[in-house]
């Protein structure tokens, strides 16, 4: 870092007023940077505090929370087993990954290995547009276009179902998978490519035996990140998958996810401090923990991949 080694202000002969001003600017900027750290601490403090209060309630036990298959905090007969919400989230995420990962990887191979420069730019812009569509619009599309279409093909498909939500979400995560994987594939050194061609490899062989294995960690990172986005996605599932916590892996049933429960509970009139309102924080804490873990894993994988080529 050459910039960091620059002569520090202190060694220059500055007037006290100038020096004070410089210090003030530095302080202000430091404050800005610090605020983002404060945000994280805020999130963690809020979640941990309210979740602790939730578990401190005699009506709730850790064991019930993680093993019971009934989630009915908003009913008179309260039961707090998060499994139905986890299974719902898992179901939608799995469908989204099944759709989004192969498509994302294929488009990454296209962008990195086949597309001419001009078209690469246009396709990238197209994918960015796709990523820029508000998720509430995608939820509308899943509920009012995809579901009626699927109901003609899939017998017994509910109006609210994780299948169409997952399908549309697959397209939502496609750009994430594609852009990070494209970067990883393009980072494969050209010496490797030339060596493979020199050995008589075809382009297809080159892709499967050189580019994909060499870019593997980047690809894995992109998939993990996409998974984290799918787990945290809210509006598509709230609109299209329903709000009925059901412990099932049947993609035709109406389900609820962690995120759709949060919206449901927050838009209802739960008095602050009630057990029902605190259950929202417990769910949010679980969600936060899962996505944080996924993000850390993806960063860890990326860091390893950086070491290999720089």
């Amino acid at each position, binding site marked *: *870092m050459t910039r960091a080694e620059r002569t520090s202000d202190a060694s220059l002969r500055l007037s006290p007023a100038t020096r004070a*001003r410089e210090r003030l600017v530095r302080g202000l900027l430091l404050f800005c940077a610090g605020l983002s750290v404060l945000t994280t601490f805020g999130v963690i403090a809020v979640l941990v505090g309210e979740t602790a209060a939730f578990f401190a309630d005699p009506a709730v036990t850790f064991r019930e929370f993680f093993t019971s298959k009934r989630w009915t905090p908003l009913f008179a007969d309260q039961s707090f087993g998060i499994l139905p919400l986890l299974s719902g989230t898992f179901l939608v995420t799995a469908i989204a990954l099944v759709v989004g990962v192969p*498509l994302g990887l294929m*488009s990454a191979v296209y962008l990195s290995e086949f597309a001419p420069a001009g078209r690469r730019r246009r396709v990238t812009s197209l994918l960015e547009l796709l990523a820029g569509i*508000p998720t509430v*619009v995608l939820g509308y599309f899943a509920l009012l276009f995809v579901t009626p279409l699927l109901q003609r093909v899939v017998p017994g498909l509910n109006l609210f179902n994780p299948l169409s939500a997952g399908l549309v979400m697959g397209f939502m995560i496609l750009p994430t998978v594609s852009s990070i994987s494209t970067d990883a594939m393009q980072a494969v050194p050209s010496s490797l490519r030339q060596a493979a061609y020199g050995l008589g490899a075809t382009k297809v062989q080159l892709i499967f035996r050189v580019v994909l294995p060499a870019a593997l960690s980047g690809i894995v990172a992109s998939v993990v990140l996409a998974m984290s986005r799918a787990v945290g996605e*809210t509006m598509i599932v*709230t609109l299209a998958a329903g709000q009925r916590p059901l412990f099932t892996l049947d993609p035709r049933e109406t389900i609820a996810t962690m995120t759709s429960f949060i919206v449901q509970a927050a838009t209802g009139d739960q008095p602050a401090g009630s057990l029902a309102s605190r259950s929202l924080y417990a769910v949010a804490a679980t969600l936060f923990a899962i*996505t*944080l873990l996924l993000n850390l894993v993806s960063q860890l994988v990326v860091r390893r991949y950086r070491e290999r080529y720089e």
Partner: protein
Amino acid sequence: MSRVLGREERADPARADRPERPDMLDLGGVQARRRRTTERAFGAAVFVPVFLALALLVTLLFDVVTDSFSWQVIEPRNSGQSFSFLEGFAAFGTWENVVRLELLAQGRTQEEVDALLSDPEARRVFGARNRVELMPWVDGRPLRWFVTSIRDDGVADLPLFEGWRRRAELLAGAEPGQVVLLNAWLDLGFLAKNASRSPAMAGLLPALVGSLMLVALVIVLSVPLGVGTAVYLEEYAGDTRFARLVELNLSNLAGVPSVVYGILGLTVFVRLLGLGPVVLAGALTLTLLVVPVVVVAAREAIRAVPDSLRQAAYGLGATRSQVIARVVLPNAIAGITTGVILAVARAIGETAPLLVIGAAAFVPRPPDGPLSLFTAIPIQVYTWVSENDVEFTHVASAAIVVLLLVLGVLYSLAFYLRRRYESRW
């Protein structure tokens, strides 16, 4: 295509065991041709997702736009007359002109109408219960003014294409007193009207103003924060432990689900600070959400400013803050602006955090300050879709078209800026 490909792949290991003749001896060019075919098939196969993505985008736009039109058979509570575009059009006061025609058509005398229109209270009541709309097609005639009333009875509502196919049948089947019309749900009246429980009268104005206020506040709050953080990281911090902490923190914040930000906003801004679910609380929540976007873009832009410029400024005796204010930031402004535009686009479309902090579903009037209750376009879309009513889905799609148009303008601007200033150095 993929099946062909699979066979090629499975054949590969066998070929590795038993090396075939090198291409030089491939006299008929059979292998070379096969290779080329495989390669082309593979190239076509990996293009499929791009095509699918494009198809999805086009289908979505098409669906939303066609859903914002519908054929309706209604039983109007007023005269049921419509007026041709020229007849009703008056350069100033078309609304008044059409209302006058409508009242006359209801059988009132000229004096009564004049008296009614000059009484502000009567005008207000009429305006709250009726809406003057320019319909593309009414009773077989194109482009006509029509006065809808809050008490009109809907008899049928058909999608754009189905209604077009069956328009003759609809006209023939309409009973006396019923009107067949093509309703364009997205019109100027939609943008100018306040919220309503009746789909025909529902407007986007409160949400539009709410979204604009949110965005204005988000820009005011997130630009200094985001750019400040970026400048600190790039120009001051170097490789300190604090800088690495901030960096790690930012990349993790970018991965936090937006609904969790909503919970932070609900707990801290709405409850702890006691703001309530007002515009300011929404803007603060969205600011936390978009600051990482601004920081990433601003850092990239600042990094792209060549060091030679900085050194030259230092050589002229500038202090560090002068270098930043007069050299670094002016040269990074295009990249920073792009980042801010993308952040704004994100903030405009964000729904979940605002729902969680409790932005109201029904706000009768536009908010009049940062401390009033509010709604935003995506929230309106959500509530209208949740109404589970076919007419409200048309209203929702009209709102989506507005939302997508706004986003389209923002993205074009961002793409333009990025391309224009991409390789300045």
